[in-house]
């Protein structure tokens, strides 16, 4: 499905408020072409100092490609990149790397080394940085400091990867899907780490599939699809742009007559799915009684009914017509 770029949300108030602060990272008209796919398509992005920026998108949206170009690891085919006021590919690359911390989506650290040895190795690459023990404590791996990396759980490995990203005491932290595959407990721990880093003044750019993660951690999110950002703003503003507070999902034993739901008061949008119906509702107080009355009238017999606060997932669905997870 083609996405109309004009649907990009740019809440003017937010942009101007943040615009005053300095820019940690900026790219314009970024392009990356692979043989069979345009992975990044004319992407513009600004991340401000001290904020946590989230790139949100389905598999293959181009998040990793974008972030690795920003990290100076992947060559771009077009556009400009400026990280902490500096472009990649100059003699200053080394100095720039001193100031960024990176966690890649799929690095496997050496299995045979212990946690402490791994962090100490990464520490040795930086001229200034944090103490090894301090970083291990920050990611709560104290008890595992002598354990082999190969013996760690997935969540512990992920925290170790973040520790390696933090040990150079970076100004800018890149995290590519830091919590994918983790259980809720482990995810909470990682969120804590990121929040503490940001609270100490660091800038974070992270990618994720998880709405809750983006809503909780990120000051602003960019929703990515097919190599471009299709919506940008604070999580709150993006959700507000739906013009709806609630999502109301229900299923019935009988099919409803077409066109009847749209006419109900308080309903802003209707989506028919295999499992049932999904209504975007601005005023649940009037919409719900009206819906129940309509169902009664059509004798459709309600099977399930749930409502939830609108989320970023609903923003993505409304922009692309697809679910984020199974896009």
């Amino acid at each position, binding site marked *: 499905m083609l996405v109309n770029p004009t649907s990009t949300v740019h*809440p003017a*108030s*937010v942009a*101007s*408020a*943040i615009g*005053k*602060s300095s820019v940690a990272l900026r790219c314009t008209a970024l392009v990356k072409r692979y043989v069979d796919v345009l992975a990044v398509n004319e992407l513009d992005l600004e991340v401000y*100092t*001290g904020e946590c920026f989230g790139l949100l998108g389905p598999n293959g949206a181009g998040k990793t490609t974008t972030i690795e170009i920003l*990290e*100076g*690891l*992947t060559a771009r085919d077009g556009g400009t990149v400026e990280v902490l006021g500096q472009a990649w590919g100059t003699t200053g690359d*080394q*100095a720039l*790397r*001193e100031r960024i911390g*990176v966690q*890649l989506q*799929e*690095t*496997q*650290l*050496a299995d*045979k*080394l212990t946690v402490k*040895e791994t962090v*100490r*190795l*990464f*520490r*040795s*690459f*930086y*001229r*200034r*940085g*944090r*103490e090894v023990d*301090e970083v291990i404590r920050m990611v709560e791996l104290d008890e595992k400091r002598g354990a082999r990396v190969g013996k760690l759980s997935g969540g512990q490995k992920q925290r170790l990867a973040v520790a*390696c990203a933090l040990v*150079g*005491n970076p100004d800018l932290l890149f995290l590519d899907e830091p919590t994918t595959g983790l259980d809720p407990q482990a995810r*909470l721990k990682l*969120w*804590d780490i990121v*929040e503490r880093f940001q*609270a*100490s*003044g*660091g800038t974070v750019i992270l990618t994720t599939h998880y709405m809750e993660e983006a*809503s*909780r951690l990120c*000051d602003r999110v960019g929703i990515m699809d097919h190599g471009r950002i299709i919506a940008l703003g*604070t*999580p*709150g*503003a993006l*959700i507000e742009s739906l013009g709806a507070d609630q999502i109301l999902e229900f299923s019935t034993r009988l099919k409803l007559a077409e066109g009847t739901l749209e006419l109900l008061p308080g309903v802003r949008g209707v989506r028919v799915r295999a499992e049932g119906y999904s209504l975007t509702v601005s005023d649940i107080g009037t919409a719900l009684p009206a819906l129940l009355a309509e169902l009664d009238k059509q004798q459709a017999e309600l099977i399930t009914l749930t409502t939830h606060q609108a989320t970023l997932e609903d923003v993505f669905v409304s922009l692309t017509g697809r679910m984020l997870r199974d896009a």
Partner: protein
Amino acid sequence: MPEIREKLSAEELADGSARDERRQGSERQVSMQGSKRQASVQHNVEQTSVRASQSLRDRTREGALNNARARHPLVELTLVRLREFTREPEAVFWVFVFPVLLTCALGIAFRNTAPEKHRVAVESSDRSGSQSSINTMAQSLKGSADIDVVVLSPAEAAGALRSGRVDLVVRSTDEGSQRAQSSPAPSFEYRYDPTRPESRMARLVADDALQRAEGRTDVTRARDERVTEPGARYIDFLIPGLVGLNLMGSGMWGIGFAIVSARTRKLLKRFAATPMRRSHYLFSFVLSRLVFLTLEVAAVIGFAWIVFGVAVQGSLVELAVALLLGGLMFAGIGLLVAARPRTVEGVSGMMNLVMLPMWLLSGTFFSSERFPEVLQPFIKALPLTALNDVLRGVMSNGTSLAANWPELIIMIVWGMVSFALALRLFRWQ
């Protein structure tokens, strides 16, 4: 149970701090919920708080800088290489135990025993008349100390010759009836494969024995002087070659696998994202090789010295220099081979391709000078040939290193050019 109590208190502590953080987390969440609704107002406030905490961060940064005593990255990288290696039992076996076992096996196979006898079969015949001449023939051959004789039927003899159990078959061509009338002397026929050197030898020795038995006399006198002193035996020739071969094998495999597996695991890409100097990474492999080389060479040379009495004729310092150069050279070549491949299969193929010519041509098991003249310049330029020649010079011949300067230059050039190329071509992702 002081241990348990200690654990408990630690857990309590952890629990307490976790609860603390959770409380902070939920407070933060509340404030963030607010920020989503009134983003513009909230942001200005946050900006100032960010600035305040940033100066705090600078202060902690200074603190960290003061206490931090990070080792030099090259040292740390080399230590990591050593640790990774020694924690891999298979690698330890192949690098340290296997060469010693190989030396042992080859040393035993080629140990100096009494010179081997030539194995000669005398073909029996079912004709009654020829039986006596066959017996005389066998007797004459047994008279020579260098010959083992067996009497076999024609079919058995042919089989034994084919399978290499005998080197030569002697057949009497005397026809009992003919002998009385015409030729007084017996006549023989030798069956052998002229491409087998031991068969040609056996023919000469057997013929000599038979002719003497029939009355031939030597026209001149000759005296044998046998050379079997240490330094001139085959095992003395073999050991330096094996040491060279080991340096090549462990350099290539040790480096190739480690690098390519780090590449497939995206660990190289992760390193590339740090300020680590790329040359440090590559050089750490060279340094770690030098450490292992010392141990692995000491194992083989020590073993050969104790068990086979293979002594180093030249200076030990010069031997160390030669080994060092050899180790550096093969580390460089190993890095070059591992510079591009993305898979372990790919790098294995490349390494075999690179090592095969040297296995065959570089004179590990027999002198490379036995290959045709046209090949010699190529063979001489091979890294392993140069190393083997230098090692033989120092270990077996006791000549000084300086005498082998062309080989030394070949080694240095190989090492430096490979390392420089590897650094240029290295694929970090």
